[in-house]
């Protein structure tokens, strides 16, 4: 055998482009040795929509609704981070009642996002009955979102200086009913995800991200917390009313006394955060019912607010803990109608590089669950091209999914 053919033991597999939200379109190129991933590279930007460019030509109120469309799942965090940045430049103080209302919506979004993710994770390893069960629970959280905001996804609840809708006393029973429902089903879901043998086989020891790597690569959110890094903007640098609420960092050792930084740990962190969010909503509703009804926005007249924002000058940042991690918006206002500069950084932006150490050494069939474990939107992963010995072949999403399901079946035998 010649030296040249000996070198062809590894081959490259491009995967993607994936279409998630703004900063998350991704294409991978894997260097494989048989089934093992030796190296991974990431390509981004397939669906860059120039949101920031567009935003620099709109006024702050219009940007709220534009920012909402950055991501379908974080449709609250983005406009809210933008609002936080603008409020800090303008020195707008948010009414107390609105601070609690903002927490309720943020946590409700987290529940919707984490349960959506849990369903997708179940689907990725071929456990579709759990997908349906999880999303049935999520449906209830979405119903509550619709009840409170008028919409399931693009909620349009954010306003600079507050929120747009109040939670009145008449709305409390419905919230309580949903909270009870979620609590009852939470234990069931926890048992399935954490005690089921299939889940354990596919997720334990798989897609490991060490604490050191998480810190070096600036990972955020549940991805970094699952590796044992205590980082949660809600606690580190409290915003809204989070400073007054009772909660703590969620790391996997709370449950298992150890931190492995694998897919299983990321499942633990997200599940426990669902519970935490339910608690936080309860705490806020208790505060809201105890407090007299009052303003929910600093300046209710939009024209007056716009006029005020037209005159401000300065720069500010708005940071929030979105379901997937820290989201940060930078805004510079220059006494003009439009912001001079606007930079959006979604959490997945920071969770892309950590994919590389996670995927090294894993098998092709593990790609879906490992990639999904950082919770990117993988909704449009429609094909995978495999270049083997120079011949191109296309692996569809279904095919990749089949490989993953087959691996689960093999492990179960």
């Amino acid at each position, binding site marked *: 055998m010649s030296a040249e053919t000996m070198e062809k033991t590894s081959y490259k597999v491009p995967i993607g482009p994936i279409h998630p939200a703004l*900063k998350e379109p991704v294409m991978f190129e894997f260097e494989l040795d048989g089934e093992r991933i030796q190296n991974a590279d990431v*390509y*981004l*930007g397939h669906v*860059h929509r*120039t949101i*920031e*460019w*567009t935003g620099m*030509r*709109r006024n702050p109120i219009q940007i709220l609704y534009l920012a909402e469309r950055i991501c379908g799942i974080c449709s609250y965090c983005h406009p809210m981070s933008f609002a936080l940045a603008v409020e*800090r430049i303008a020195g707008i*103080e948010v009414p*107390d009642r609105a*601070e*609690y209302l903002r927490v309720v919506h943020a946590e409700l979004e987290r529940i919707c996002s984490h349960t959506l993710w849990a369903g997708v994770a179940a689907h990725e390893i071929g456990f579709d009955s759990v997908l349906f069960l999880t999303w049935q629970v999520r449906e209830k959280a979405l119903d509550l979102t619709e009840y409170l905001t008028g919409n399931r996804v693009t909620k349009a609840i954010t306003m600079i200086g507050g929120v747009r809708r109040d939670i009145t006393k008449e709305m409390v029973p419905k919230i309580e009913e949903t909270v009870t429902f979620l609590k009852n089903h939470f234990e069931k879901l926890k048992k399935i995800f954490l005690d089921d043998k299939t889940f354990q086989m596919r997720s334990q020891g798989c897609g490991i991200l060490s604490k050191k790597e998480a*810190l*070096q*690569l*600036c*990972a955020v959110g549940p991805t970094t917390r699952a590796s044992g*890094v*205590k*980082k949660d*903007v809600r*606690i*580190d*640098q*409290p*915003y*809204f*009313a*989070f*400073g*007054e609420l009772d909660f703590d*960092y969620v790391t996997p050792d709370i449950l298992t006394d150890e931190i492995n930084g694998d897919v299983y740990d990321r499942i633990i962190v997200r599940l426990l955060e669902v519970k935490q969010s339910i608690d936080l909503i309860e705490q806020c509703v208790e505060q809201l019912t105890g407090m007299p009804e009052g303003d929910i926005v600093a300046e209710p007249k939009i024209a007056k607010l716009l006029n005020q924002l037209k005159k401000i000058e300065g*720069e500010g*940042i708005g*940071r929030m803990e979105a379901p997937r991690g*820290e989201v*940060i918006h*930078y805004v*510079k206002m220059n006494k003009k109608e439009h912001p*001079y*500069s606007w*930079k959006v*950084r979604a959490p997945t*932006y*920071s969770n*892309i*590089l950590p994919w590389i150490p996670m995927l090294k050494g894993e098998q092709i069939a593990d790609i879906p669950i490992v990639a999904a474990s950082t919770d990117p939107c993988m909704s449009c992963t429609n094909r995978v091209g495999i270049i083997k010995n120079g011949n191109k072949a296309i692996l569809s999403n279904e095919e990749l999914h089949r490989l993953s399901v087959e691996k689960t079946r093999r492990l179960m035998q």
Partner: protein
Amino acid sequence: MTTSKKLLPDEIITSFKDEFSDKILDSRIEKHPIGPKKTDMIQLWFTLDRSIFKDAVKHLMKLDKKAHFSVSSGYDIEDRIEIIHHFSIYTGTKGDEISINFTVPLPKNDPTIDSISDLIPGALISEQEKQEMLGVKVKNIPKDTRVFISEDFPEDMYPWRKDEKNVDSMARNLHEPSSKNVSEEKKENADEKEEKQ
């Protein structure tokens, strides 16, 4: 933990000024009242000379070796490009975190800045993005490729720029077209009509 004592905001500023003296062009502390109890959220803003930018990041990592880099943003204004690097330190204890922002002005005729990817590997994507969006040059960047913009995008045009290197001419009918585009379009339409007649 062997981390040294946490400094107060003004102590952080003093420590930077002691280290870099007049290379710190400007610094300010912002305190924002947050939540019903109006607790202060602290943000520090520094404007640095680019010659000390990398050393300043090293100094920051001495204050907290787990310093978190969020992203860098930027814009061009007059004859310079300003890059703002957003960091946070003292993460991991309730309410202790401080946001630190380093603004580094770069002249447009030589917009080069040192790479910090060797100190913080997670800064890579952000540095690549600044190169393609603003046209700055990051010295010693580990991976000098485009990241969000496709390879067939024209050279020397940068989406975030507001000067003659902007991309407004490419963005037609996306929103209200710029006055130049409107007049061009009108002219084209008029030409077409004339041809038909």
